[in-house]
């Protein structure tokens, strides 16, 4: 699957990268990325995930062919 990250996540991951791990859900993906880069965990825990311009929940089942976008909290204020 292809992963794309934004904003502060670019301090922890490449802007866009391929991931070939066997992962079943978005929750798995979150855990996997946390293990790859533990410093990113606090941010990852507050991120939303999107597939094809739709937000998906932690339970969303991955096929392995998705383009997954990881969305940190918005700028707020």
């Amino acid at each position, binding site marked *: 699957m292809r992963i794309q990250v934004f904003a*502060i996540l670019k301090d922890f991951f490449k802007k866009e990268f391929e991931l070939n791990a066997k992962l079943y859900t978005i929750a798995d993906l979150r855990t996997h990325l946390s293990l790859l880069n533990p410093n990113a965990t606090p*941010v990852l825990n*507050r991120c939303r995930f999107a597939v094809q311009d739709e937000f998906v929940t932690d339970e969303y089942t991955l096929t392995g062919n998705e383009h997954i*976008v990881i969305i940190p909290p*918005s*700028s707020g204020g």
Partner: protein
Amino acid sequence: MDFITKKEIDLVALLQKSHCPSAGAIVLFSGEVRNHNVGKSVRYLEYEAHASLAAKMIAEILLAARNRWSLSIAHAQHRIGKVKVTESAVVVITASVHRGEAYASNRYIIDRIKHEVPIWKCEHFADGSKEWGGNCNCDKETGDVNKHIYEFESV
């Protein structure tokens, strides 16, 4: 509709397009880059967006505003890239028969954009440091990154 734009926001052109024979009230909000934040001097901001999703969400928010209030005009535009002090980063324009709706819907639109839409700002300070502003931390209160505490609900 350029909801997300790399170009300088043309407030004047947007305002000039917003006069509507059936509307008695126009409210224009411009969110502009300040020369200071959290006690530090700001050189400029850099905005990044997940542009396709952001544009889609802004369209949905504008539609929700139109469904909630009777509006002649509901428009919003957010700039991305480098934005200098006093330049507009985001504009919201609403128009309605009476002023109550124009103010309320305008506030609703900007609050939802700020909390929900995937747009991020990186502050570049005068001292050369930079920082991604993750100002929306409603989830610390609500326990859910999809549940926000909107300002328009408490005014």
